[in-house]
C-alpha cells in the first residue's frame, strides 16, 4: 500500500510494491492518513523544518484510478463517487500541507496519478523511463475529467500548446520534454532510488530554509486560487465526475 518514513527533516511517503499503484479508496485513505499524521506531527511548531517527498516503487508512479475495481459488478456508483471524492480530498490535503512538497515521479503516471504528481510544489522525474499521460481521450468517454482535474492542470500548465497536447492529444510526455514544457523541474538520470535521493535532497534543502509552515501554505494557496475554490470545501460532492 504505502509507507511513511523520515529521512532527516523530510517525510518520505512511498507507494509500495511493484504494481500500478492504482488509486482506489483503500490506497487513497492510506495516503491521507499518513498526511494526517504528518500534519499532526508538525502542528505544534510551524517553524520546525519539514518537507514531504512522495515516491513509488516499481515501474509506475501511479496509473490513475482503479478502473477495474470501479467497473466491477460489486462496485456501485456511490462507491465510484467516493473514490473520486477521496482523491479530491487528497489533492486538497497536499496543496494545503504546511511544508514544501516534492513529487519523485519514479515511473509512469496517468490521469489521476498525473494530478497527484502535479499537486506537489516540485516535480522530479526519472529521465529514461516513464511518462506523464492524461489518458482520458484515449480510453474514450467511460471516464471523463473530474471537475477539479482541469483546474489543477490549468494552474500548473499555462502554455496553450502544452495544455492542448496534454489534454486534447493524450500526449505521453517523458521527463526531458516535461522540463522543456514547464511541467517537470528536473529529469534525473538513473533508477528509482536516484530519483528519490535527489527529491529528498531538494526537500531537505527546502526544509532548511526556515520558512513558517502556515505562511508557506497560505502563499501556495494564493498562487492557485481557482484550484482551492473547487477543492477546498470540506463537505459535499464537489467532484462531479462521469464515473
Amino acid at each position: 500500500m504505502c509507507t511513511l518514513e523520515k529521512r532527516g527533516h523530510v517525510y518520505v511517503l512511498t507507494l509500495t510494491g511493484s504494481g500500478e499503484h492504482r488509486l482506489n479508496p483503500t490506497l487513497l485513505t492510506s495516503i491521507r492518513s499518513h498526511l494526517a499524521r504528518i500534519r499532526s506531527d508538525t502542528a505544534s511548531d510551524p517553524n520546525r523544518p519539514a518537507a514531504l517527498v512522495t515516491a513509488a516503487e516499481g515501474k509506475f508512479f501511479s496509473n490513475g484510478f482503479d478502473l477495474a475495481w470501479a467497473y466491477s459488478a460489486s462496485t456501485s456508483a456511490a462507491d465510484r463517487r467516493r473514490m473520486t471524492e477521496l482523491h479530491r480530498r487528497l489533492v486538497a490535503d497536499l496543496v494545503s500541507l504546511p511544508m514544501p512538497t516534492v513529487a519523485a515521479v519514479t515511473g509512469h503516471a496517468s490521469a489521476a496519478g498525473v494530478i497527484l504528481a502535479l499537486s506537489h510544489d516540485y516535480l522530479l522525474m526519472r529521465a529514461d523511463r516513464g511518462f506523464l499521460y492524461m489518458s482520458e481521450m484515449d480510453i474514450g468517454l467511460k471516464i471523463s475529467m473530474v471537475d477539479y482535474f482541469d483546474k489543477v492542470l490549468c494552474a500548473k500548465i499555462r502554455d496553450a500548446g502544452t495544455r492542448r497536447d496534454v489534454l486534447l492529444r493524450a500526449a505521453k510526455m517523458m521527463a526531458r520534454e516535461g522540463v522543456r514544457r514547464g511541467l517537470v523541474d528536473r529529469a534525473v538520470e538513473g533508477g528509482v532510488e536516484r530519483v528519490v535521493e535527489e527529491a529528498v535532497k531538494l526537500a531537505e534543502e527546502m526544509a532548511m530554509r526556515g520558512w513558517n509552515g502556515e505562511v508557506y501554505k497560505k502563499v501556495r494557496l494564493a498562487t492557485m486560487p481557482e484550484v482551492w475554490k473547487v477543492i477546498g470545501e470540506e463537505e459535499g460532492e464537489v467532484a462531479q465526475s462521469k464515473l
Partner: protein
Amino acid sequence: MCTLEKRGRIFVLTLTGDGEHRLDADLISSLRSALATVRSSPSSSAKGGGGAALVTVAEGRFFSNGFDLAWANAAGSFSAARARLGSLVTLFAPVVADFFSLPMPTIAAVTGHAAAAGLLLALSHDYVLMRGDRGVLYMSELNLGLTFPPYFMAVMREKITYPRALRDVALRASKIAAKEAKERGIVDRVCGGAAETVEEAMRLGEELAAKNWDGGVYASIRMSTFPEICRAVGLVEESDEQKQNKVVSKL
C-alpha cells in the same frame, strides 16, 4: 525622492539618490503626484496629441528594495509594526492602479536590485528591461514570514505566468538575475550595465511613442488584459458602452 522630466516624447521618472529607494509614505506620495502630472499633461490626452511613453529609472545600486521596513519595525510593538506595514501596503495600491491605468506605454529600466514592493513596482510596467551585469529580482516575503497582500498576488499571477517561475518567485523566495528572469518570462530584455539599460529603455520608449497610439485606448486595452489586477487595486472596469465609444470615436 523622485523626479519627473520630459525628454522629447518620453516622461522619465527617476528614483533619485544612492539609497535603497525604500517605498515609504513620502516616496509613494511623490510617485503619485508625478504620475498625476504625467496623466494630466496634454501629450498624454486622448485628444489626438502625439504619442508618449513613460520610463522609470533609478540611481545607484537599487531599483527599489521595497517598503520601508525599518520604519515599520521602529513602531515599538509587533502589532504597531504590522499596522505600519499595513498602511504602506494600502498607500501603495493606488500607485499600482495609477500605472495600470496610465494612458501611455510604460517601461521599467531595472538598473539595480528590485525586491518585494520594489519588484511589484517594476512588474507594474508594460515592459521590463534589466541590467545583465548585476542585480536580482526577489520577493522576500516568505523569508520574512509574511504572506502577500492580495493585489501583490494578483500582479504576480498575471505577470509571471509560467507556473514554476511563479513558484520560484513566491514560494521559493528565489533571487533571480536578469538572464534567468528573461528565460522565465519575467523581464523582456537583458541589457549591459545601468547606462545601457536606460539607453535601451529610452529607445524603446521612443519607438512606442512614435506609434502615436491613443492614450485612452491604450489604457483601456491594458486594463482589459489584466482584469484581476485592476479589480484588486480598485480600478473600475469600463462598461461595454464606454469601450464602444472609444471605438466609435475613431471610426
